[in-house]
């Protein structure tokens, strides 16, 4: 067991990034992620890295584009409205197949919204957000330690697949402090050589990083097919989730991130009352771990989706469940979060309805 220190989620993400060799950060202040640029402004110079406070979210993501093309492990972070602004750059980076980390410490929306936690950017993160057919690898940590661990992994997967990775967090997990074991960085994959880097063409042919495909006429079709093949490969190789108390469960909760953390508390309360409830928590939101949901749907009576939005994540759960069992919903946007008691109440009403039907 290594040394544990007390860190906010946002700080843990930064330290993990530094440990993983991130040496370029560009960002713009926005609540509730301000600890990230603040920490990086102090930490980057200590490791001969670069910190740039960009003039805009758009500039920040484009600085990351340049840094990634230069071969640096690099990242930017923001919160919901700022992530919307970055979408143009994200689309370009995915098409150019450059690695980077983008963190979204979600806040309430739409519009300027508020600065409370939210999970209402699920569609934006998982389904696209910018223009074109592309995918981000999207990770949803549920504790400060997991923020630390997944941030390290994120850089590896970004390099391995040459694809941007998004940490989809939220204002609660970004702001809350927990003891974190500062684990040393160890690559979890064989890292490929970066043969795309633009570093001057000394001793080799010039390289081009581009996203315009005009010739031949079907060049962009071919490029898209290539991207889709990569996405299929990622889907077949990368699927992370946690199951909690699902054995013999009559009701399974589907929740991710901080919501799953709260759901665990509700499950403990429900089990004390004799209701057999479990949890499936996706850790990768894309690729979406469909299999555990499909399997659970065959055995449990009902599923309950809990999320801090008006119903986005639920669509992927329903696709996975494929009508094999009823899927109930508990969620609101705008900075609302579920308490253990609110979830317990919903579980009890679901259990009662089943009991009534069974009579």
């Amino acid at each position, binding site marked *: 067991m290594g040394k544990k220190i007390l860190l906010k989620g946002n700080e843990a993400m930064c330290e993990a990034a530094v440990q993983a060799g991130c*040496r*370029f950060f*560009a960002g713009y202040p926005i609540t509730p992620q301000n600890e990230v640029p603040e920490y990086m402004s102090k930490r980057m110079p200590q490791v001969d890295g*670069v910190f*740039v406070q*960009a*003039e*805009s979210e*758009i*500039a*920040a993501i*484009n*600085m*990351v*584009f*340049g*840094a*990634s*093309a*230069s*071969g*640096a492990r*690099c990242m930017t972070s923001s919160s919901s409205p700022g992530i919307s602004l970055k979408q*143009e*750059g994200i689309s*370009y980076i995915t098409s150019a197949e450059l690695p980077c980390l983008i963190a979204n410490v979600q806040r309430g929306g739409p519009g300027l919204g508020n600065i409370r936690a939210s999970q209402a950017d699920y569609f934006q993160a998982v389904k696209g957000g910018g223009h074109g057919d592309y995918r981000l690898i999207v990770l949803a940590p549920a504790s400060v330690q997991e923020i630390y661990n997944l941030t390290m992994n994120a850089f590896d997967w970004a390099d391995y697949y040459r694809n941007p990775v998004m940490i989809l967090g939220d204002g609660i997990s970004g702001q809350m402090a927990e003891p974190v074991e500062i684990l040393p960085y160890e690559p979890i994959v064989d890292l490929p050589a970066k043969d795309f880097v*633009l*570093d*001057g*063409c*000394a*001793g080799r042919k*010039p*390289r*081009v*990083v*581009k*996203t*315009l495909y005009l010739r031949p006429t079907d060049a962009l079709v071919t490029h898209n097919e290539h991207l889709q093949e990569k996405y299929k490969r990622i889907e077949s190789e990368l699927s992370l989730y946690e199951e909690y108390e699902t054995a013999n469960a009559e009701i399974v909760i589907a929740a991710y991130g901080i919501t799953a953390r709260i759901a665990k508390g509700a499950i403990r309360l429900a089990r004390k009352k004799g209701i057999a409830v479990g949890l499936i928590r996706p850790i990768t939101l894309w690729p979406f771990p469909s299999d555990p949901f499909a399997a659970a749907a065959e055995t449990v009576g009902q599923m309950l989706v809990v999320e801090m939005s008006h119903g986005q994540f639920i669509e992927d759960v329903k696709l996975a469940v494929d009508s094999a069992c009823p899927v109930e919903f508990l969620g609101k946007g705008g900075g609302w979060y579920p308490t253990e008691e609110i979830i317990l109440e919903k579980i009890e009403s679901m259990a009662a309805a089943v009991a009534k039907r069974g009579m």
Partner: protein
Amino acid sequence: MPTLKRTEILTDARTHYCPGCGHGIAHRLVAEVIEELGIREKTIGTAPVGCAVLLYDYFNCDIIECAHGRPPAVATGIKRVQPDKIVFTYQGDGDLAAIGTGETIHAANRGENITVIFINNAIYGMTGGQMAPTTLTGMVSTTTQNGRGEHGEGPPLKVCELLSALDGVCYLERTAVSTPKNVNATKRAIKKAFQNQIDGKGFSLVEVLSMCPTDWKLSTEKSVDFVNNEMKKAFPLGVYKDEG
């Protein structure tokens, strides 16, 4: 009499530029400077969105194609990670002075040690002749069909004048490619802008007044006259800042 020869910095590809366009001259000048300074193997260029987007088909060095207006931000990322490399942007008026104004001003004000080649032809070429931020007052374009000014467009944006107020900027010069003398002056300015970067002096920008016969709907000859008689009035040539 100097012997004219091809520069190896340009590929053999035939450019897509229209007859009488100034991009070909500007490309050639940038390429000659890169060759003369011996920096090809440490140079990274950024291509804009606009007529020069295919820069990488013509230049024999590493190039990254950027989103519209973002080259100064991308160049910032590259240069900060690789301060020993030579990084240049090549941008048109829409890219640099409309959609990318923010990126331009802030890269300039930070004093990023990069070289910016700004081609000002007062029109959107690639999209077919719409108003540019630098379109002259009264000038006809497909979106100012009775001349700039009737929709409240304001006067043309003067980039060198604007940036000259910023303390972070090292070197600003406006030149043209409409006469042999201007072409020579442009090459000298571009060389200085690259040399400044080699010497670590900071943000250098050369604004090049350039012809666009196709979208101005003028002959190549009259386009040269338009630069010399109209554009130079609105955009006076000269050195706007030289901290080198």
